[in-house]
C-alpha cells in the first residue's frame, strides 16, 4: 500500500506543529522521525524502540505474542513510538494516514518535552541512550560468541537477571550513597543524640555499631548487590548484571510516569491540533482518532484517558478556582498553564494522582475497585462517599513501581553461612508464591548459595527458603 503522504508534506506539517509546540511552552529535544512498516514497528515495540538491543529469547516471545494479537485484530499498533533520548527518536508507521502522522508528531513533542523536563528522567542520560544500548548489545553478543562462554551461559545469567531487574531503587533522584558515606552515617547514628535534659537524665551509653554487617543498610539494588558480593563471579557475569540493571534503571522513570506522560502528550496533541486549523476532512478524522485513543478502557484504566483528565482538571481549577479550592490551596498565584508546567516537572504518577486526582474526578470517571473472587473479578467498591478514598489509595498503589514488591537484602551472611537473607516489606499484598519460588530460584542461581526471604502469607509472618532446588515455607511465630 503506497503511503498516503510524502516526506515533504510531513516536514511542512512538522514545521507548523513545532512552531505551535514552542509557542505554548513545550521544550522538546531535537527530534528524528523514522518512517517504518508494521513489522518494523512490532520489532521496535519489542525492543523498547531501541535501534539496537542485546538479544534474548524473551523479546522473541513478545514479538510472537504481539504479532499474533495484531494478526488476529485483537489489538492495533500504536500510532507512535518514541524513545527517551537526545535527540529523541520516534517512529511513524507508513500505512497510517496523513492525519495520524500529524497527530503522532504533535503527540511525540509532548512526550519529548516530558522526558526532557520531568525530574524522574534526570538520571537517564538521554544523550547517551542510543550508544549505551548499542554498547550493551555489542558486549552481550561478544559474550555469546566467546567460545568459553556461549549462548547457554549468557542466557542463564540474563534469565535470572531479568527476573530481578526491577528489584532496585525506585527514586533515582535521590543519590545512592557510597560505601564510605554509609559507614559514616552508621557511626554518626550510633552516637548518643544530644539531650537537652542531660542534667536529670542518665547518660546514654555508647553502643558500638556493627560495621561488619553486609549490607550496612538494607539494600534495594539486588543485582548490584549480588554483582559486588558474589566473589565467584567472573567479569562477564558481573558485566551482564550491570547491563540489565542499567537498562532497568533507564525504564523505571517511564514506568513511574506512565499516566502523567501519556496524559501530557495527549493533552498537547489535542491543543496543538486544535490551533492548526485542519482541513475539514482531517478535522473529522482527528476527532474520531482522538476519541479512540482516549476512550476509557472498560474495566481497566486507560492511562491516556485518566492522564488527560487530570491535566485538564488541574488547568481548569487553577484558572477558575472554586471557593473550596481557594480554601484548600490558598489564593491562586499561578495560572493554569503555569501550574501544569510546574506539575510536569516535579511529580510522578503516585504523587500526581495523590495530589490532583480529586473526589469529583473519581466520581466523574466512575472509577471502581475490583478484587478476585473465586476466579472472577468482582467490583468491590464504587466511587461513593464512603469509598472514593479507598479507590484512590488502591489506584495509587497500582501505578508505576507500586506494582513491584519492595524487597531488600538485609544480610549476606545469614546464620554465619553466607546465606542471603532478604526481607519483603509487606504492605497488605501477598506475593504470588509460584512466581516467588521461581524468582528465588533465579536468585539462588546468581548468589550461588541458599536464599531466605521473610514475607507474610495470609497474615502470617513466614520465611521462604530456597535450598537444594526447592522452596520451603516456614511460618514464624
Amino acid at each position: 500500500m503506497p503511503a498516503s503522504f510524502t516526506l515533504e508534506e510531513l516536514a511542512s506539517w512538522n514545521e507548523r506543529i513545532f512552531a505551535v509546540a514552542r509557542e505554548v511552552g513545550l521544550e522538546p529535544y531535537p527530534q528524528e522521525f523514522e518512517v517504518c512498516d508494521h513489522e518494523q514497528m512490532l520489532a521496535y515495540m519489542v525492543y523498547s524502540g531501541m535501534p539496537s538491543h542485546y538479544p534474548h529469547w524473551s523479546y522473541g516471545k513478545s514479538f510472537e505474542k504481539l504479532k499474533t494479537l495484531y494478526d488476529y485484530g485483537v489489538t492495533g499498533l500504536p500510532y507512535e513510538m518514541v524513545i527517551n533520548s537526545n535527540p529523541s527518536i520516534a517512529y511513524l508507521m507508513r500505512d497510517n494516514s496523513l492525519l495520524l502522522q500529524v497527530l503522532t508528531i504533535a503527540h511525540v513533542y509532548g512526550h519529548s518535552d516530558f522526558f526532557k523536563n520531568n525530574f524522574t528522567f534526570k538520571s537517564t542520560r538521554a544523550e547517551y541512550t542510543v550508544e549505551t544500548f548499542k554498547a550493551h548489545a555489542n558486549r552481550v553478543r561478544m559474550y555469546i560468541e566467546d567460545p568459553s562462554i556461549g549462548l547457554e551461559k549468557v542466557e542463564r545469567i540474563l534469565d535470572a537477571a531479568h527476573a530481578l531487574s526491577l528489584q532496585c531503587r525506585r527514586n533515582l533522584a535521590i543519590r545512592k550513597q557510597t560505601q564510605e558515606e554509609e559507614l559514616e552515617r552508621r557511626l554518626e547514628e550510633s552516637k548518643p543524640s544530644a539531650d537537652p535534659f542531660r542534667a536529670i537524665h542518665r547518660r546514654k551509653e555508647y553502643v558500638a555499631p556493627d560495621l561488619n554487617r553486609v549490607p550496612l543498610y538494607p539494600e534495594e539494588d539486588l543485582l548490584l548487590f549480588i554483582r559486588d558480593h558474589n566473589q565467584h563471579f567472573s567479569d562477564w557475569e558481573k558485566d551482564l548484571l550491570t547491563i540489565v540493571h542499567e537498562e532497568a534503571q533507564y525504564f523505571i522513570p517511564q514506568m513511574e510516569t506512565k499516566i502523567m506522560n501519556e496524559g501530557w502528550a495527549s493533552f498537547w496533541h489535542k491543543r496543538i491540533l486544535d490551533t492548526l486549523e485542519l482541513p475539514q476532512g482531517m478535522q473529522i478524522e482527528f476527532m474520531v482518532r482522538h476519541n479512540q485513543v482516549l476512550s476509557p478502557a472498560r474495566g481497566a484504566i486507560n492511562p491516556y484517558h485518566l492522564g488527560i483528565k487530570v491535566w485538564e482538571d488541574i488547568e481548569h481549577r487553577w484558572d477558575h478556582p472554586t471557593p473550596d479550592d481557594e480554601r484548600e490551596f490558598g489564593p491562586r498565584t499561578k495560572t493554569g498553564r503555569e501550574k501544569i508546567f510546574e506539575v510536569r516537572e516535579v511529580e510522578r504518577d503516585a504523587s500526581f494522582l495523590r495530589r490532583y486526582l480529586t473526589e469529583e474526578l473519581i466520581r466523574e470517571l466512575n472509577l471502581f475497585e475490583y478484587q478476585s473472587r473465586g476466579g472472577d473479578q468482582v467490583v468491590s467498591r464504587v466511587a461513593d462517599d464512603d469509598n472514593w478514598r479507598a479507590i484512590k489509595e488502591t489506584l495509587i498503589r497500582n501505578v508505576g513501581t507500586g506494582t513491584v514488591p519492595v524487597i531488600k537484602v538485609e544480610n549476606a551472611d545469614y546464620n554465619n553461612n553466607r546465606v542471603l537473607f532478604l526481607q519483603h516489606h509487606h504492605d497488605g499484598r501477598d506475593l504470588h508464591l509460584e512466581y516467588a519460588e521461581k524468582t528465588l530460584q533465579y536468585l539462588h542461581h546468581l548468589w550461588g548459595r541458599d536464599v531466605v526471604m521473610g514475607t507474610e502469607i495470609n497474615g502470617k509472618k513466614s520465611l521462604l527458603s530456597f535450598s537444594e532446588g526447592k522452596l520451603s515455607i516456614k511460618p514464624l511465630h
Partner: protein
Amino acid sequence: MDTIFRSYDPASAQRSDRSAGDRLRHREKVHEAIRHNIADIIAEESIIGKDRDRVIKVPIRGVKEYRFVYGENVPGVGQGGPGTQPGQVIGKGEADGDAQQAGDRPGIDYYETDVSLEELIDMMFEDLELPNLERKHLRQIEVEQLFRRKGYRKKGIRIRLDKRRTAISRVKRKKAVQRADAFALRPQRFPFHNDDLIYRHTVTEIRRESNAVVVCIMDTSGSMDTMKRYLARSFFFLLYRFVCTKYQNVEIVFVAHHTEATEVSEDEFFHKGESGGTFISSGYRKALEIIDRRYHPSLWNVYVFHCSDGDNFESDNPAALQAAKELAEVANLFGYGEIKPLGSGYYGSSMIQFFSQLEAENFQTVQIQRKEDIWPSFKGFLSRERAREDAA
C-alpha cells in the same frame, strides 16, 4: 529547527528482521517446554487414538518470565459506566494482560501453541533417547530402491548424457588441437567426437526394508472396565507409534481374549466388552498362531504387548506361563502390562508375581495405576530393549 525525517526504506525493512534470532530461540524454548511437560500431555486423554494430523493445543508452562509480583489478594482499579455496582462481575480471573497495564500482574502468561500430533510424537521419542533398534540382518527385506549418481563414464545410454561436460570436453580438445597446430588458423568445422561424450554413471542402491508387527493382546473380560481399557489403549498407542518411528512397514494385530481369543478389528478391540472369566493362555496361543502364520520372525520384528488386570483363572496359569515363554522366544520384545487403577477397590491376583518365573531377557512387566504412569512405564518397557542391545 533540528527535526530529521528518515524515509521508509523497503530494502532495509526486508533486511532488518531483527527479532528473527530471538524468535528462533524462543521457539526452541517452547519445544523444550513441551518436551519437559510431555508426561502431562500424554496423560491428557485427548491425544490417544486420535487422527494423526490433528493439531493439538499444548499449554506451555516453561517459558514464563518470573519476577516477584503480587498474588491474588491484590485489588485493582478500573473505570466503569455510571451503573457499576459492587458485586458486579467484570471479568474472569486474572485479566489477560492487555486490559491491564503491562507488567503489573502475572496474568495468564500461559499460552497455547499448536503442535501436530506427529510433531509431538517425534518430540516424545526424541526425549526417550531411543534405543536404536538395529534389526537383525535376516529380518530385513532388501528392496531395489533408487538409482544414485556415482561419477561419470565414457560409455552410457543416451538419456544419461551430460551435455555440459560433453561440451566442455569438446572445447578442451579444440584448444589442444589449436595449440598443437598454431599456424593452421583456417576456420574449420570442429565436430563432436565420440571421445567427447560424457555420461552420468548411476548405481543401484539397495534399501533395507524393515518390517515390524505389533501384536496387541488385551483382556476383554468383564472386569476390564472403561478406565482400564483407556489406560491399556494409551499404552498400545504409544507402542505402536514408537515402532512406527523405527520401521518402514509396521502392521498391527489386535487379539482380544477372555476365555477364548479372537483376532478383532481396532474398533472392536477397544470398544467391545465381554462378560465372564479369563484364560490368558488363550490370548497368547492366538498370538503365537498369528505370528506363525503371517508374521514369521525370520521376516518380521515382532512386538507383543499384553494388557490385563491380572485376574486369571488359577488353573490357566501354567499354560499361560508356557505360552508366554514361547512368545518371548519369537518376539523382539514381549511385555505384560498390569492395569490396576488406583481406587479400583480390589487387589485381586497379580500375574506380575507369577510371571517373575519367566526368565526371558526380552520380557518385561509394567504396572499402571494412573494416567501419569503410562509414560514412565513405557520408558521402562523400552529400557529393557535398550539394555538388551547394549549387552549385545
